[in-house]
């Protein structure tokens, strides 16, 4: 671990100022990503700014039935919040499918969005990695890439975005509210994360010095019929190989609207508008779900060890749609 300076922020302004003053500073929320990567020398911040004193810890109702989730709300609290469970079961399920209870008790909403790649070549500094050291090469491309992405990849990086929570939020059209020295702005979650292209080190639209203050989830009445299915190598406590967050508005057996996002297979939380529109005004049956799944994976590119993910993701999506349609 590299030596660093530790500061505790008393207010949002304070946090923003402390971070902005040092280009190599990082916020510390739950620490489950940051501290872990510092121990591996992957993150080498010169300054760590603790934001655990900030009061961004509430879940509030906003106009029309939506929710404003404070950036420091812990994953456990969010997953078990009565309004989340009632209005957005997909979000609660995605959170509970992630990590372990101990980690969820620490992990925060803001930190979860900013968690970094689980690519093992990224986590071990002995390897070349464009995300860690731009231009050094991508060890995973021709290495062991069973867990890597098949959608949104580039020749520079094929790491998945590992968050489960963010997949549900992508399906729900969530909005990220951020605040910097110049004030507040909002970024739709589907635009928040960047695909790697030729700059895999650039992961989000967040600027240095900006603090995530909340995530807003707009009202979506049919999200009551939403769910998250996650496929992983063991029964619990493993990252996603393929997952699907879906919400369906089905009336009289006909789909009026659909929200679909995929996890574990893409370089960012992967919303699939084509598959959604293909489902609209069709009957909720296996044939329609199969077509949607084909569309959702149509651009997939397999590497040596992850070709199975393409078929797995299709089947996972079909399973999720079938179950969602069956919810009364």
């Amino acid at each position: 671990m590299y030596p660093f300076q530790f500061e505790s922020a008393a207010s949002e302004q304070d946090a923003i100022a402390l971070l902005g003053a040092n280009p190599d500073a990082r916020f510390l929320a739950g620490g489950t990503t940051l501290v872990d990567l510092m121990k591996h020398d992957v993150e080498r911040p010169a300054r760590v700014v603790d934001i655990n004193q900030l009061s961004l810890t509430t879940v509030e109702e906003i106009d029309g039935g939506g929710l404003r989730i404070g950036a420091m709300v812990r994953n456990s609290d969010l997953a078990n919040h009565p309004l989340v469970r009632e209005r957005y079961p997909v979000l609660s399920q995605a959170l509970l499918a992630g990590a372990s209870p101990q980690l969820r008790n620490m992990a925060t909403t803001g930190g979860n969005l900013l968690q970094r790649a689980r690519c093992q070549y990224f986590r071990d500094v002995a390897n070349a990695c464009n995300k860690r050291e731009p231009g050094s090469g991508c060890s995973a491309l021709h290495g062991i890439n069973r867990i890597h992405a098949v959608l949104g990849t580039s020749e520079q990086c094929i790491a998945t975005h590992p968050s489960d929570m963010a997949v549900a939020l992508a399906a729900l059209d969530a909005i990220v509210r951020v605040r910097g020295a110049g004030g507040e702005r909002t970024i739709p979650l589907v635009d928040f994360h960047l695909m790697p292209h030729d700059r895999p080190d650039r992961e989000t639209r967040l600027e240095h010095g900006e603090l995530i203050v909340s995530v807003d989830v707009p009202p979506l009445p049919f999200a009551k019929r939403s769910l998250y299915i996650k496929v992983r190598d063991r029964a619990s406590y493993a990252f996603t190989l393929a997952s699907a967050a879906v919400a369906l508005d089905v009336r009289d057996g006909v789909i009026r609207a659909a929200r679909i996002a995929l996890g574990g297979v893409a370089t960012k939380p992967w919303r699939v508008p084509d598959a959604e529109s293909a489902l609209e005004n069709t009957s909720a049956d296996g044939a329609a779900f199969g077509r949607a799944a084909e569309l959702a994976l149509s651009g997939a590119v397999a590497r040596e060890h992850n070709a199975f993910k393409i078929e797995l993701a299709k089947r996972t999506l079909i399973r999720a749609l079938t179950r969602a349609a069956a919810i009364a």
Partner: protein
Amino acid sequence: MTEPGHIGAPLTRLDGRLKVTGQAKFTAEVPIDHLAYAVMIQSTIGAGRITRIDAREAEAADGVLAIITADNAMPLPEKGRAAFSPPAGRMLSLLQDYDVHYNGQPIGVAVADSFEQARYAASLVRYEYEAAPIDVDMEASLAKSYPYTRKILGRDPASTCRGDVSAALRQAAARLDVVYRTPVETHNPIEPHATIAMWEGDRLTVYDSTQFVYGVRRVLAKTLGISEEAVRVVSRFTGGAFGSKGAAWSHVPLAAMAAKHVGRPVKLVLTRRQMFGPVGARPHTVQHFEIAGGRDGQLTAMRHVTTSSTSKIEEWLEPSTLATRMLYRCDNQETSQHLVRLNTGTPTFNRAPGEASGTFALESAMDELAARLDIDPFELRLRNYAEEDPEEHKPWSSKSLRECYRVAAERFGWAKRPPNPRSMRDGDWLIGWGMATATYPMKRMPASAIARMTPDGLVEIRAATHEIGTGTITIMQQIAADALDLPIERVRFTHGDTDLPQNPISAGSMTATSTGSAVLVAARELREKLRQLGFDNPATARVTEAVEVRSESKPGKEREQYSMHAFGALFVEVAVDAELGMVRVRRAAGAYSGGRILNPKTARSQIIGGIVYGIGAALLEDTHIDRRSGRYVNAELDEYHLPVNADVPEIDVSFVEEDDPHVNPLGVKGLGEIGMTGVAGAIANAVYHATGVRVRDLPITLDKLL
């Protein structure tokens, strides 16, 4: 439990409270004054030479006491190889030269006032290399395999041949010719390896997380060129080992060298990532299996050829063919072992070495043959029941496998199994049932113990064995209390210290058989000595000064007369998601015979632990090594998957007690490893029954079932 009659009682572990309350001190927690912290530095190439080392920046960093590399390490006798004598003494990397044989090889040590400073300093040392080509791909290297010819563990022949296999294969009604594969499985005990070394003049005291204090002592003395008497090794609690702590790996002498170098006590604890490579693993196996049988279900031929991987610096064998030689009657059989040398860390024992990987192949092959012969797989085992050891033609010292089969099959409900694959379903899940035989040899080595009664009426038993989490302290106290007719509170067991009488490595399921026997004999001799002093009943004896006996117990000629093994039967139910391929073990029922059961509670824990370990081997564990760099890729527990609680179902364990007068004075066979055997086979067979898909290469991950 205060009444005598402790053996056979389900006593709760005596060290349990200490452990759950944090009072049990593990090696890294031993409080030592003026301690310095060492961090091991590892190579980042897979083979070649270090051409330059620049430690200037590291040496200048805050708190740094020393950077020790091949440039400045103390020279050791025979370039650090003086202790080579497996299993405890291995080919180590002790900074005596600049050669690199695998990626992750120890190439330096950073020592500082704090752990964080040492770690930072370690990252600042610059190495330049001249890289050489590497071999790490098992499949690609098979062409370079060669036959292993020495005795296996000094006892069993490297290959066997009985009858005429080729002729029998030609004439068989049904035959199978397939290859099974198991990956490198890296032990991950909860406690990583840890060593504290401190010198007082020329005397060295070492706290170590180990399965073998006497082995560590020998390795340290020989490696450092000092006498064994000058070295004391202490290991009170070891937080799991599974074979990985049976040898003194490089970090142990490195800690002693570092302590000498800086003139302070030094602690060296491995990180989780450092558990992958420098401290052993189960090697790859590629097992070519031919098996044949007649319509009557009699086995007519077997040929089992195992190739396992080893490192470039040492030959280590995974003897996967051993169980094949003795488990079933089969007149025509050939087995042989081969090795492939790879640029990896040297492999070592990993729970049931040989038996675990070998029974995966054997028990899968039996299942595949049963399907070809249209015979129930359980029935096929019964029809080929070996009434004597089919290889050595010796009687069994005892064998209750038939009873184990019966008990486990009944408790599982095997009779209701539909014969065809894909015939049971529960919603999205296909259900399958599979079974396998479990087996592990009774092993025993010379052991010694002191039994000592003090005027306060307490008895202390002393033996340099280890508490590696198995319940050793508890059963040793049970044994002694029983032999002396004392309440267990009046017996204390002291272990884990080379100041105590010598005992073997706590491995090979031989602690109960070896140390247990020595403790029994010592307690009996103490009782006899008390009788001579006029105390017929030890419970009321009041000696005026301490009375002590020192006893030894060692195997006799029983091995020449008998074949001695523990046996068991395991039945499992799996569920496989029909579309998504996920495999879950839903329930398991096993019955085991291991001689006398000293403590059903700790015995059951050992079996359950073995089965859980087997679930990991069957479904999850797989060490990924990058074929270009030789680097251990998933060297962390996030992607090196072990079973979590949610993966472990209800496990029903029964014991079939045996009265075996031949094995050892205690009549026990050892239960530490048998639970692991057969598990992967039973699960693979159940997966086949659920899906109709036969997976022959472990682990059975979902991508193999899509």
